[in-house]
């Protein structure tokens, strides 16, 4: 009788221990997945990549960048993404969620600078 009660206690403790570990690992897994896919990481990455493209481009270059990934993030977060090249301030500005955005300056002094975001084809068109 005493032994049975003892083994039930052990069993219950083991089950609680396993459940708590599963919960902990699930929280950690969720954190890692979300940390790598947050809008802020994409905002920073896209702003820098576009600025580096502008710095590396020769005058007269026109390019269409596929930004469908950005629109996909925007749909998930119910937000229309913004990618803008502010030619007056020499900045690339990105915003993919309601909370904030990111800006990065390119070092080139452009004589020509035009950009537009094609929302239908999900492309960013840049003329430098």
């Amino acid at each position: 009788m005493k032994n049975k009660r003892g083994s039930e206690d052990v069993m219950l403790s083991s089950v609680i221990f396993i459940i708590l570990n599963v919960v902990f690992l699930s929280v950690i897994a969720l954190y890692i997945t979300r940390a790598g896919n947050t809008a802020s990481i994409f905002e920073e990455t896209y702003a820098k990549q576009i600025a580096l493209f502008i710095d590396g481009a020769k005058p007269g270059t026109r390019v269409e960048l596929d930004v469908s990934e950005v629109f996909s993030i925007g749909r998930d977060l119910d937000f229309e993404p913004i990618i803008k090249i502010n030619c007056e301030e020499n900045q690339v500005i990105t915003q993919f969620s309601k909370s904030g955005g990111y800006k990065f300056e390119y070092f080139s002094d452009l004589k020509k600078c035009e950009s537009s975001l094609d929302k239908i084809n999900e492309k960013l068109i840049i003329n430098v």
Partner: protein
Amino acid sequence: MFKNKRAQEKFLSGFNVVVWLILAVVIIVGVSLFNNFSTDARISESRALNQKIIDCIIEDTGELIENFNETFSIYETCGIREDLFEKEFVLGARIELFSSEEEKPDITLHFGSTEMIFLCDLTGEAKPDNCFSEIAFVNDKKENRAYQIKVLTASNHNGKEITGSEEFREGGSR
């Protein structure tokens, strides 16, 4: 699973919580470091700047541009903005022109942060990873001689997170 009750209590209480906390801290710090590393564009920017300077001072024919001398400015000739170099000091560049036979440069030009360029000259682990150096060989058509050009660039340029959406909606084109 447990040998006695005292052991199971120990496992389910303080010890387990401590292990979880340590694991959580290690993972959070690791993920943050990885995210910072994956979005670090400084070496790419150093490389892009280096390439832009080389494309500017060397003509398609492989010859040095005519107006390259002690007063040469990358801001006036190469279409590079001065403010990031001379006001914000987040970019730096050094151009050295060597005669083929000599070790000391004939012309040395500095732009922007000299401190960053000084650090780029260090060797081993002390050398920062945001430096980029390229050597090119050019001809001088006036003097009909060959030169070696060494361009060293460094970037410590980071963007800014911004809040609010008003400024996003405006902007222009040039």
